[in-house]
């Protein structure tokens, strides 16, 4: 019997993992080899996907990236005997430097097993956190989360324990209903950590939400999942029904008499619904229009009741904290950023993937030690951190430590930890224009500076790029950005100016090329 692992993760599949898995099955059948093929989650080393692993007495050995057109020769070379004689051979999976140098808390289980296998989750330490939580009262659970120093991983980095305390203390208008809502509307370009967590380790999120329910006295949870993630949708639904069957969701959780129900709801391609109040409106069946705060969702949230809205990775961090203790989590980190952050290397990067590390490493170390430069081999020029509302950083800022406060001091955001790399062919005035264009497409329309300001922003940048009255238009752009920052309710209008102004500030030359030169470049 040979045990082989081929990920069912959507990036692995996008690179041909299904065809690779099929070839392995056909090969084994033809040769009469008894095969157990596990479709595991991904380890997040996406530059090595499809990553095929073979179980050996000394551990799992890996091969990658195994492309569709290479699998036959790899099989003939002895893949199923765990051959070392292949250019794709990577040695023991656990010793691949990209993985071995990480500090995996939330992603410790990612890629090990079939993600929907409930027994595998329990065998790997799953539901220890929930078992501990069931022996505690709500306040004690909230205190544990406070002590861990966990902050919201969706980007805003609000202290999770304080949010939970607010919901814990809040009185529902009907005397009993509170909600746990997971924001799984991971719309930021360059981020895929939520998707990976849901596709590779769905029970961890389910367990985290259940613990949150116990902590604040909520019996209903919703995962608001973007419809762009059909694989995560299928996996979460399967995991939820398995958890129900195992007695870990529904009524009388694990024999405790406590109840927690969970349902996945799909978004409908609206970036703004990643904003928590817009998300709640959408869950209620309305247009995803941003609500004014206060009242905070923690007090008046879903259907008017106290609601925890947390990002996938915030909730997924909770089982570790309850299982290993808050101190184990708080022991790593940097300044007020405790624990780990899942950095995501994306865009024009040679070794893209998920890198979970304690806060504090510099961006440059991340780009060099893990990313190994650009995919195209050209020099890196700009790095956008924190999604489409995050600033573009020039090389002079790459020494910034990866820490919420250090980034804020540079007028940048660490956000969700997405890192998108551009090489020297990028035209930063075009990127600035896109930021405004994106805001035109995705603004909910509630605030005028966001709704109309972004349209005017595209026009102003077009005039600058066409060298029409450039100086006056640069001033106008600055003024427009200030209006958007000051006059928008949420981060959509309030932060779109971040990437725009960072492009102006650090890559001014891209806005001041004269049209004649641009035309020459185009014709050359």
């Amino acid at each position, binding site marked *: 019997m040979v045990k082989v692992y081929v990920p069912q993760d959507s*990036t692995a599949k*996008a690179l041909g993992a299904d065809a690779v898995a099929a070839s392995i099955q056909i090969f084994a059948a033809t040769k009469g080899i008894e095969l157990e093929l596990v479709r595991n989650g991904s380890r997040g080393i996406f*530059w090595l996907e499809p990553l095929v692993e073979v179980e050996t007495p000394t551990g799992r050995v890996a091969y990658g990236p195994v492309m569709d057109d290479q699998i036959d020769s790899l099989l003939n070379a002895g893949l199923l005997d765990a051959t070392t004689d292949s250019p794709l051979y990577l040695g023991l999976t656990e010793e691949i430097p990209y993985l071995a140098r990480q500090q995996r808390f939330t992603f410790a289980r990612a890629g090990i097993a079939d993600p929907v296998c409930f027994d595998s989750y329990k065998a790997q330490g799953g539901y220890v956190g929930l078992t501990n939580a069931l022996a505690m009262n709500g306040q004690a659970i909230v205190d544990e989360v406070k002590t861990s120093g966990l902050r919201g991983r969706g980007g805003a980095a609000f202290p999770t324990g304080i949010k939970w305390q607010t919901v814990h203390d809040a009185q529902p208008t009907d005397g009993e209903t509170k909600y746990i809502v997971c924001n799984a509307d991971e719309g*930021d370009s360059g981020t895929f950590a939520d998707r990976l967590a849901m596709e590779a380790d769905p029970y961890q999120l389910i367990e985290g939400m259940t613990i949150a329910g116990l902590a604040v006295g909520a019996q209903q949870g919703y995962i608001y999942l973007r419809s762009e993630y059909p694989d995560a949708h299928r996996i979460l639904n399967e995991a939820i029904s398995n958890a129900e069957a195992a007695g870990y969701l529904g009524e009388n959780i694990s024999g405790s008499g406590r109840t927690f129900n969970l349902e996945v709801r799909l978004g*409908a391609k609206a970036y703004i619904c990643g904003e928590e109040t817009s998300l709640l409106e*959408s869950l209620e*069946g*309305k247009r995803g229009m941003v609500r004014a705060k206060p009242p905070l969702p923690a007090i008046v949230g879903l259907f008017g009741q106290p609601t925890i809205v947390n990002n996938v990775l915030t909730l997924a961090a909770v089982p570790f904290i309850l299982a290993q203790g808050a101190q184990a989590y708080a022991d790593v980190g940097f300044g007020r950023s405790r624990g780990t952050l899942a950095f995501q290397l*994306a865009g024009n990067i040679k070794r*893209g993937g998920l890198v979970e590390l304690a806060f504090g490493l510099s961006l440059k170390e991340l780009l060099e030690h893990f990313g190994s430069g650009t995919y195209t081999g050209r020099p890196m020029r700009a790095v956008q951190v924190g999604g489409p509302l995050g600033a573009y950083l020039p090389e002079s800022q790459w020494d910034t430590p990866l820490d919420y406060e250090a980034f804020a001091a540079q007028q940048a955001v660490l956000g969700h930890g997405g890192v998108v790399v551009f090489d020297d062919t990028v035209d930063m005035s075009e990127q600035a224009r896109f930021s405004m264009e994106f805001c035109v497409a995705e603004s909910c329309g509630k605030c005028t500076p966001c709704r109309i300001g972004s349209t005017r922003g595209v026009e102003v940048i077009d005039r600058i790029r066409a060298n029409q009255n450039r100086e006056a238009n640069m001033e106008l752009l600055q003024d427009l950005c200030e209006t958007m920052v000051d006059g928008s309710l949420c981060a959509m209008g309030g932060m779109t100016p971040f990437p725009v102004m960072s492009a102006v500030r650090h890559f001014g030359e891209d806005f001041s090329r004269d049209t004649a030169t641009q035309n020459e470049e185009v014709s050359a």
Partner: protein
Amino acid sequence: MPLTAEQISTEVKRSIDKLIAKPGALLPILHDIQETLGYIPPDSVPQIAKALNQSSAEIHGVITFYHQFRTHPVGKHNVEICRAEACQAMGSRTLERHAKESLGIDYHQTTGDGAIFLEPVYCLGNCACSPSVRIGDRVHARVTPDRFDALMEELRTDKLEVLNG
């Protein structure tokens, strides 16, 4: 054969009946209708509104707010090209231009043979292996213009098989 107004109304009713008990049922209902019929027929708006005790204007407002919902039938295969930054860094602007030119359509349009409906998408969560294209529920990574042509060819070949079969 397009469905008759009556058949459409029956399908819409089926979606409503299945999901109306859920709190905040409108989005699940709209998803279900679009999955069944391929779009949300404008004539179904009053029917949905009545069932949810809302105005037609409210339902229309929700349908038009979300990029995903559409009110007319589209091509057989939904092809989405990612326009977001990580894909831009890997040449998605060139890919977009190529797709529009080679298919002879703009975004939100269907090719003349009814095979392909082209849409933009902002991020598919495949940002480490850009540029990305989604066809139906399947994402494709590192899509060059040549690869795009091959994928479109596959879609059209499938269609012929279906027609012949």
